[in-house]
Every structure is written in C-alpha cells, then in structure tokens.
C-alpha cells in the first residue's frame, strides 16, 4: 500500500453505499406492495364517496352502517365464538400433544410429528371437501345415537353448524400451538420436571405447576395465532359451516359478490386492525419468553 490510498479508499465505500441504498429501496417497494392495499382499504373506509376511486371527503358513515347491519354483526359474533372455542380446544390439544411427543419415545415419532402438519399443508379446498364428506357420513349415525339416547323428540341434531365449523378449525389450528410449545419444550431444562417430581409433585402436578408456567409464552403466542387463523379462514369454513354459523369472512365474501360497498371497507379495516394487534401481541409475548 502506498500513500495514495486516501483518494481511492472512498471507491469501495461509494459502491457499498449504492448497494445499501438499492437494498433500502427494494425493501420499501416490497413493503409498499404488501401494505398499499391495506392502506387504501383503510383510507377509503373513511371516504364519503360511494365509489372507491374518487375522494369526496371524510365520513364515518360506513362504520355506522356496518354497526347497524344485523347479518354482519351476527357473523362477527359467530366468528368470535368459533375462534374462541377453537382457540381453547387448540391450546388444550396442542399443548398436551406437544408434551406427550416431548416426554415419551413413541415408535414412528417422526411420522406422528409430520402427520400433525398435513392439515396445514393440504390445500384448503381438499380439507374442506374431506371434512364435509366426513360430517355427512357420520351425521346419520350420530343422530341415530342421539335419538336412541334422548328419545326421538330431542332437539339436538348433528348437522353442519357451529360444532362442525369448530371441529374443522381445530384440525388446522392446534398444530400452530403444538409447534410453538414443542419448540419451547425443546429449550427447557429436562431437570425442571425432575426437580418438581423430586420435591414430591405427582407428574400431573409437575406439569401444571412447573411445566405449564415455563411454556406459557409459547402457549399464549400459539393461542393468538390459532385465534387469528380461525377468524380469517374462508375456504374450509365455506364447506362445513351451516346457515346459522356463518362467519364474518364468509359474510363479507357474500356481500362482495353483490358488489363492492364502502361498508365492507369499514369492516375490513376493523378486521385488519384487530388482526394486526393480535399479531403484535403474539410476537411480543414470544420475545418476552426468550
């Protein structure tokens, strides 16, 4: 190296700066592509014009219309109920499943672990049709059993509705909890459970008092993911939900087919905001747990 390095030294830095700037632009472009539709949707939900294309001033009219729209509100209630029950069941099944896979050495353990993910990987249309076939196939049997158990006069029937929708949602929501919990368990000191047993806890008490608190961040973040997925799901739900358990995304979809309506922008904006909040909370909790 000679003394003349000073002027040439800026060269590579200049090159790096350019690359950095290009990368920055590229990232911005990708983010814009991802978020522009959402931003427009939210913006137009406050647009006084019936047509999305022209801006005619600020209004909250569409939000008021949305709140007054009874089918929409009913669908929202359905969605929250279904997502809530789905989440609870997913947490129970996912957490105990992860614990069992973690603590016991099963034959074909890898296969079991893979099988859990099939419902997520399979195209939703196929899952939907499959579940529909299953429900229609078992319905007469179950109803026959109900009739014989409670008498033919009983009101309880097995038909497409809340129960089938929740069962369907659980099949693809519990794996999310299971994976989150499993990852956390893999990081857990195996002596933790032994310490509890050693101090006189039964295996059940050890699980409840020591293991569950240790994996709680994973359970909560898994639960939030399950809730969000259940709220958002359209295709499988389309096949398995009955008329009275129609979910919000389905109701929105039906409305869209009748034509775009600013009220739909409003409900979608609420949906986006709620989802975003849940995702942020889930991510926060996952990080705290680290």
């Amino acid at each position, binding site marked *: 190296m000679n003394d003349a390095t000073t002027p040439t030294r800026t060269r590579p830095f200049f090159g790096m700066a350019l690359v950095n700037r290009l990368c920055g632009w590229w990232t911005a472009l990708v983010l814009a592509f991802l978020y522009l539709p959402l931003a427009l949707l939210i913006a137009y939900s406050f647009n006084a014009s019936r047509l999305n294309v022209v801006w005619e001033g600020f209004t909250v009219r569409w939000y008021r219309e949305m709140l007054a729209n009874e089918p929409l509100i009913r669908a929202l209630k359905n969605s929250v109920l279904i997502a809530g029950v789905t989440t609870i069941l997913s947490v129970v099944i996912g957490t105990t499943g992860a614990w069992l896979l973690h603590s016991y050495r099963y034959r074909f353990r890898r296969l079991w672990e893979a099988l859990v993910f099939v419902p997520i990987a399979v195209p939703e249309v196929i899952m939907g049709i499959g579940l529909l076939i299953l429900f229609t196939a078992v319905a007469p049997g179950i109803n026959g059993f109900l009739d014989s158990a409670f008498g033919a006069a009983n009101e309880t029937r097995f038909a497409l509705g809340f129960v089938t929708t929740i069962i369907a949602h659980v099949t693809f929501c519990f794996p999310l909890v299971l994976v989150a919990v499993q990852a956390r368990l893999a990081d857990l000191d195996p*002596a*933790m459970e032994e*310490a509890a*047993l*050693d101090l*006189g806890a*039964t295996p059940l008490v050890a699980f409840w008092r020591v293991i569950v*608190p*240790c994996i*709680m961040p994973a359970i909560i973040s898994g639960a939030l993911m399950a809730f969000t997925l259940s709220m958002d799901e359209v295709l499988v739900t389309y096949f398995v939900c009955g008329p009275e358990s129609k979910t919000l995304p389905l109701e929105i979809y039906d409305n869209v087919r009748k034509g775009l309506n600013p009220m739909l922008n409003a409900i979608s904006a609420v949906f986006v905001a709620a989802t975003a909040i849940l995702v942020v909370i889930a991510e926060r909790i996952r990080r705290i747990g680290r």
Partner: protein
Amino acid sequence: MNSDPSKPMVELRAVSKRYGDLLAVRDVSLTVRRGEFLTLLGPSGCGKTTLLRMLAGFETPDAGCVLIDAEDVTALPPNRRDVNQVFQSYALFPHLTVEKNIAFGLQMKRLPKAEIAAKVRHAIDLVALQGKEAAMPATLSGGQKQRVALARAIVCEPKVLLLDEPLSALDAKLRGQMQIELKNLQRTLGITFVFVTHAQDEALTMSDRIAVLHRGAIEQLGTADEIYHRPKTRFVAEFIGQANMMTASVRNREGADALLAIGGEFTLRAHVAAIPATAQSVTISIRAEKIQICGDGAAAENSFAAEIEDVLFRGEMLQLTVRTPDGLRFAVVIANTGGARKPHQVGNRVRCVIHRSDIVVVDS
C-alpha cells in the same frame, strides 16, 4: 418411623443398569451410613449420575434393589421417596421467587402455611440468602442459585440428600468456599449426603468415605486417606493424585523386607507384608509427592541418584521429572520453597529418597 440407627441409610444391592448395549452400572453394592457424607468419584461417563438417578427414582435398575432407611424403594416413583436432589443445572423454577422455590416441596407435602413460612425462613438463614426472598432466579448469581437449590432440597428434611456435581458450574474460588459450607451444613443438619463429582479435590475435602467408580463398577470404597494412601487398584492410584506406576519383580524376601527390582538393576526395599505372598511380579504405585529430594543423604534406605530432566512451575508446587542412571523416570512433586534461588534446575544431580511405606502394591 423406621430409623434404627444401626441400620444403613442407603443400601444398594447388586444394582445394574443397562442402556442398550452399554452397561452403565454393573453390579454395584454399596451401603451409606446414617449421617454420612459419601462421595461417588469417577471420570465422566463412569455411571455416577445413573447411580444417583436410581437412588432418586428417575431410573429403575435392571437388576438389584435400592433400600432407603431399610425400606425397599426400587419400585417407588421419585415423588414418593424421602430423598431430595440438588441438580447440576440447579433446575430452579424460573417463574417462582426464591421463597416460593424453596417452599415448593413443603407445599407438595401439604404442610400448614405458617409451618411452611417458618421452615422456609430457617432454610434461607441456613444458606445465608436473607434479603433475596422475593428475587427471581434469573436475577441471581451462580453461587446464589446454588444456595437456593440447596435450600429447596434441605427444607424438605430428606433422609438422603443427593448432589450431582453441584459445584461444577462455580468458579474455583467460590467452589472452594462452597465445599467448606456444604460440609459444615451437612454436619449441622446430620443429613446423609450422597455427593457425585469427578473432581478429586472435592471428594478428598468433604467426604467421610469415597466410592471410586470406574466403568460402572466400584473400584474402591474407603476414607479419603485410604483412597489416597492405599489405592487398591491401578485405576484408583492413577485417577487420584499423581502416581508413579511401575512393574516390579520380587527379588527376595528376608524377614520384614522384600527387595523389588524395577527394570534391570534398580531396586527398592518394601515391607514384605505389603506384597502378596506368592507374587513374582507386582504393580507398585509411588505418589509423586512422596519422593523426597535431598542434597546428600546417601545413607538412607531406598535412596538413589538422579538427574533433573524437566521442571514445571506450578505455583505452590514444582513438578519435576528425574531420571536415574539406568534410565528410569520418576515424576516428583515438591513444595516450591526455593523462591528466587531456584535450587532445582534442569541438569542438576540430586538424591531421591522413597520411604518404604510409601510403596503401595496395587492390583493391575
């Protein structure tokens, strides 16, 4: 309550444990006396943890049985054994405060709240953790975690306390301090301790008796003094301290003396009683620090001339390698009292003396 003081606190009867093809513990029989500090000492992988886990109930022996306070507990799960363990990783419950960690075992026993509080208080005093009651484990130092783990176990007043390398995560200074504290605690409480370690200094410092393990079997069981000065096997002699191991042929026996020849012409006199009656050839062990180096002393028994071949500075010790004219080498450890005078230098000629009672015959 069954607590006949003459009965051992722990008894292992011909216990074996196999993992696949590996016999991790082979036919171990061992008794631990009431109030004894017994150490399982051995290199990593020799089966110490496995043995301890069978006492705690985390592993079931494939053969043999485990008795605690004269009760056969072989089939009892860990939560129904009157035994507590201090884990190598401490395994403190991260979501509970120090106080609640310590109270856990007592809550499992469903003691009244007031009694739990009093016992926890006492345990915290014992391990000197006052002021840390409400701290979360993650905020504690290694030494403090260690104390919580200890308090959590002893507060349950177990019949036996099991400790699996509890000091290995601490730095050297703290480890030395904890060794003394642990021993004092054990004396104060009178609880039987079964302590696992691979560090001989820990074993020698704290134990009433030491069981040296090798490949899943007990090589020798005895006091620190016995293990150190009278190793029974070559493994024990080599594992503990630094020993010169050599094969000697028994030249002749006259009265109380036996003449041992090593290599060709080099001979040492030993107690005839120390040598098996019919043995032609024996393996002997001479501890490095038992070989004395003196200026002259030509007249002493078992004295020989040698040249210093190597000097290693070890702080308070000097580690020498000396070589006799016949080419025999001995490792010698002497106190580093020379200061700046450096009396021992490579190439110096010295006289070495080995006292006859320091020649120990071991099984090979």
